[in-house]
Every structure is written in C-alpha cells, then in structure tokens.
C-alpha cells in the first residue's frame, strides 16, 4: 500500500455546498440584492442623470415627509418602553411557573397568529365610540361621553401594544426561566431580600435578553403600517414613515423616492439599534455592583 499524504478534509465539502446553495442564493437574490438595488435606486431620481441625493434632500426639505420620522418615533418609543416594562414585570413574577400556564400562553399566542388586521378590526369595534368598552363605562356612570380611542394616536398605540406585548412577554419568560434558579436561592440564603436579589443578581443576568427584546420590539414598532392606517389618521397625526414610503411607491409610482424613504427608515432603525447596544455596554460594568475594587 503506497503512502498517500493525507489532506485535512474540509467540513464544507461538495455535499455541504449543494445543500446550502439553493437557500443561500435565495436569500442573496431576494433579500440582499433588493436592498442594494433599493439603495442604488434611491440615488437615481428619475429626472436627474447619474447619481444624486435629490430624493433625500426632498425628503428632508418637506416637513410633511420628514415629520413622519418624529411621528413614528413618538409611536414606537413609548410603546416599546411600556411593553418592555410590563413584560419584565410579568415575566419575572411568573418565572417559576404559574396557574394554568399552558392555557394562558396559548391564549397569548392568539394576537401574534391572528395578525394585525384582525386585531385592528376588533379594536375598531370594541374600543369604538359605540363599542363595548365605551358602552360599559357609560352604563356604569363613570363618564358621560365616550372616550375617543380609535382613529387617533391612542388607537394605534393600542394595536401596537396588543401585538407586541404577548411576543415580548413570552420571549422574556423563556429567557428568565432559563436562568439558573440556584443563583436566586443562594442570594437569599446570603441575606438578600427579593428586591435586592432582583436588582443585584437577576437584573444583570437578564440585561442581555432585555436589550435584545427592546431592540426587536422597537424595530417592529417603528415599521408600523396597517394599524396606523386603520386605527389612526394616516394623513395626519399618525402618518408614519412606512406610510410615506408606501404612498410614494404605490400612489405616486416614484420608486426611486420610495426607496429613499425606505433607506431612511432602515437607517433610523439602525441608529436606534446602535444606541441600544452602546447603552448596554455602558450599563454592563455598573451591573456588577461590587464592593471595594482594588
């Protein structure tokens, strides 16, 4: 038998290549390419030859357009904060299992699966001025006039909250219950009250999950579209940036401008993500609250 110099077999052989190729190509062609194409298109407004930032200048020169950034932030940020705080409160409190857990988690899946359209339609009915909620509080004599909860900012926030809360709650619940329970127990044995346990032991360990959850919820809230139309005032107080992009694409047929707006939307989300990451870095050393460093 002649000696053959052995060559290290790569784990990425022909079989691996063949298996990965279809999906990889798909993601590259249908995700990466459109992104790049959109970016390219945004820099080539129809009436100007060559590359130009005209779209962006127009966008930032028109209050009706750039105002959408502020509107969208003012919807996304409060919603994210409320969703996160409530989810944290509930997930932490219920981290060790709770009564009828399976049933409750199943019901919480509903808003996620049913989708935003059904939810919005339901909110229009239930929270409308003739809806059950207003009927109830008027019947109880709490108010004399119905609360206007739809076709305004509040309606959109309601829809956003109901969509994001179950998602965030279930995410955090899974994450928090994954933390080793003996850490909590040992902290209590060392004399820490439940609040101290939360503040000094659990919260630092939950922080990474919190940051990711915050980022995800914010990014999803920022892209709000159908509920802003159905439950808000799409041409007024709840004209979000996604509406602006949509209108350019499908009402004005100016794909170039629409792409520019989509790019701006993506950039805003990216900036927010970076801010979240930086904040987390800054908070991490403080999380290891210790005694006397040498």
């Amino acid at each position, binding site marked *: 038998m002649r000696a053959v110099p052995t060559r290290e077999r790569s784990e990425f052989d022909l079989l691996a290549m063949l298996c990965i190729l279809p999906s990889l190509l798909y993601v590259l062609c249908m995700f990466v390419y459109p992104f790049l194409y959109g970016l390219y298109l945004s820099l080539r407004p129809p009436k100007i030859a060559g590359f130009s930032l005209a779209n962006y200048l127009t966008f930032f020169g028109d209050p009706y357009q750039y105002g959408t950034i502020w509107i969208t932030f003012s919807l996304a940020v409060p919603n994210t904060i409320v969703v996160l705080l409530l989810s944290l409160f509930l997930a932490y409190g219920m981290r060790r299992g709770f009564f009828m857990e399976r049933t409750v988690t199943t019901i919480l899946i509903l808003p996620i699966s049913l989708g935003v359209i059904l939810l919005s339609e339901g909110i229009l009915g239930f929270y409308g001025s003739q809806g059950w909620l207003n009927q109830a509080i008027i019947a109880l004599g709490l108010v004399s006039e119905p609360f206007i909860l739809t076709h305004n900012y509040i309606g959109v926030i309601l829809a956003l909250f109901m969509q994001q809360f179950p998602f965030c709650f279930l995410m955090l619940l899974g994450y928090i219950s994954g933390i080793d329970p003996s850490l909590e127990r040992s902290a*209590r044995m060392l004399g820490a009250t439940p609040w101290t346990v939360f503040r000094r032991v659990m919260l630092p360990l939950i922080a990474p999950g919190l940051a990711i959850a915050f980022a995800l919820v914010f990014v999803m809230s920022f892209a709000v579209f159908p509920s802003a139309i159905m439950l808000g005032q799409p041409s007024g107080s709840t004209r979000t940036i996604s509406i602006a992009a949509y209108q350019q694409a499908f009402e004005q047929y100016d794909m170039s401008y629409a792409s520019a707006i989509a790019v701006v939307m993506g950039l805003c989300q990216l900036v927010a993500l970076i801010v979240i990451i930086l904040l987390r870095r800054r908070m991490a050393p403080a999380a290891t609250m*210790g*005694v006397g460093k040498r």
Partner: protein
Amino acid sequence: MPEQFNSLNSLRLGLTKRYGSKTVLDNLALEIRGGEFVTFLGPSGCGKSTALSIVAGLTPATEGEIWLDGKRADDLPPEKRGFGMVFQNYALFPHMTVFDNVAFGLTLKPLMKDEIKRRVQDMLRLVQLLGFEDRYPGQLSGGQQQRVAIARALVLRPRLMLFDEPLSNLDAKLRVEMRAEIKQIHAELGLTSIYVTHDQAEALSLSDRIVVLRHGVLMQSGSPQDIHDRPKNAFVADFMGFRNFFKVKIASLSQGMAEGVSGVVTLRARAGGDVVLGANAIMAIRPDDIELSGEGAVCGRVEIVEYLGREQEAAIRIDGGTKLWLRTTSRLQVGDTVSLGFPIDKVVLLPNE
C-alpha cells in the same frame, strides 16, 4: 486560628412534605445539637434535598415545625434565618468576581469597606484562594468554584451550615481532598452542619451522625459505626454495602444467639430480645466478611472474578443456587470450588420485609 462561630445550640424538626398525593417526606423528626455534623444519606428521590430546602426556608413544609434554640423558625424567610448554604452546582454569581461573590452577603449589612475586605480575605485564606479575588467563576476549576461557594457562605458566620451534595460534580480524587477540607473547616470554626449526599463513603468519613432516608422515611439514625456495622433493616444494610442477603427462618434461639435456616445454609448471628422462634427474618453479611472455610462451611463454585488490585471480588454459586459475593485477598479463578464460612460476629439479623 480563626475565631469560632456563634453556632446554634439546638435545632429540632418534624417535617412532612407532600406534592399532591405524593408524600416526599413522612414526618422526618430529629434533633441536632450545636457542633454536630449530621448527614442525610440516601438514594436520589429519598427526600434528603427537600428536607434541606425546607430547613433553609426555600421550600415550605406541608406539615411540621422547625424549632431553633427553642423558638419557632418556620415563619422566617431564608434571608432572615442566618443559615449558610452550599449548592451542588456552586451557584456562584457569574457576573461578579470571586471577591464580589464572597463579599455579597457582607455588602447587605452596614459594614465598612475595610472590614468587608478584611473578612473576605480571611475567608479566602482559609479556603486557600488568596490571590484569586479578581477572577471570575468561569475562569475557575470545579474545586476552586466550590471553595469560593463555601467561603461565600462562611464569611457570614452562619449558625448552621447546609451542604447540598456539594462534591457530586467533582471528580473522585478532588472529592476526597475536598471532603477533608470540609471536615477541617467544620472543626476549626466550631460549625453545626447538615450535609446531604448519596455517597456512603462521604457520609461515613464526615459525620458525627448519619440519618438514612428512603422515600421520605427515616430508616435509621446513628453514628457512622452504628450505621455501618449494625444496620437495622435490609435497606440500610444494602445501602451500606452488605451485598449478601438470606431469607431465613429462625430455627433455634439460645443465649442471645439465633440460628437461621435458608435452604441448605444455616447461619448464626447475635440476636436481641425481640427475636421470635420460627419467625421469618433476613440475615446479611458483607463480601469482605465472608471467610474461605470455617464456621458453618458451605460449598460453592466460583463463577465471576473481578480484579480490584489488592483484593478480588468473586461471585460464588453455592449449593442450593444462591449467588454470593466474596471479597478476598486470596487469588481465585473461575471454576474453583471454595468453602465459605460466616463468622457469627459479622452476620447481622434484620427484620423480614
């Protein structure tokens, strides 16, 4: 020489714990005196860790009470009981350094930073980890992590130390070393300790008293010698290494000696006053106590031989079909015919089950 702790004087318990219809602890009653090292010993699922958890205050008992120095302690939450606890998986805070971990309990009290630093360093010196203050748990070996966990609990000068199978995750050699360290610390500091384990060697070497549990029931409580040499029932005997059991009928009884017959084998053992002639009972003997030829000799054929270094452990099939285990320094071979003797002092008489 580190100062001794203000340990408790007495701890009295009577605990029952049920989960739905399942009883995990069935009126476990005992009293622990200050300075004692008590071990809860038993197979997994016997309730020993549950008992410890109830003493710590982490789990509520279904029925029963805990009396600490004459005062009821059940309603105290764990953080107010002043007990120290060491867990099987160390439970060190991963985001804190060794120093911060050990100092954690101290930072909850109104102490000056210098005092805290001094106490932490004293404790680290005791567990031989001085110099490791700035390391993180993830950078330590299993044995080192366990020592940090011990230091963290001890630095608070607890009245009672609770150990929940602390050495189970360590390899055999380390286990033996750490065992000696724990024993030494307990003695030096004058601790009172409750230790939970399934390892009988650990229990025997560490304890002043062993409590053997099975399915939540106390099977026997006594000194290591009592448990080892004079088990009171078949379960404890089996757990402590008696591999050979005979179901016998008491054929004769005289002068504190009982003769039991099981098929072709007749064994004799010392008997107390509660043995009845003609009753069914169990007699047991350890593999190392069976002699090659001698009293009550029974013949058998060697079927399996396991080499253990200095000794061999052999499975012997005796006339009548029973298989016995013998441990001996003699060299045996498969197929040999041997004659076995059962010294009366080494046979234990146990109640029938």
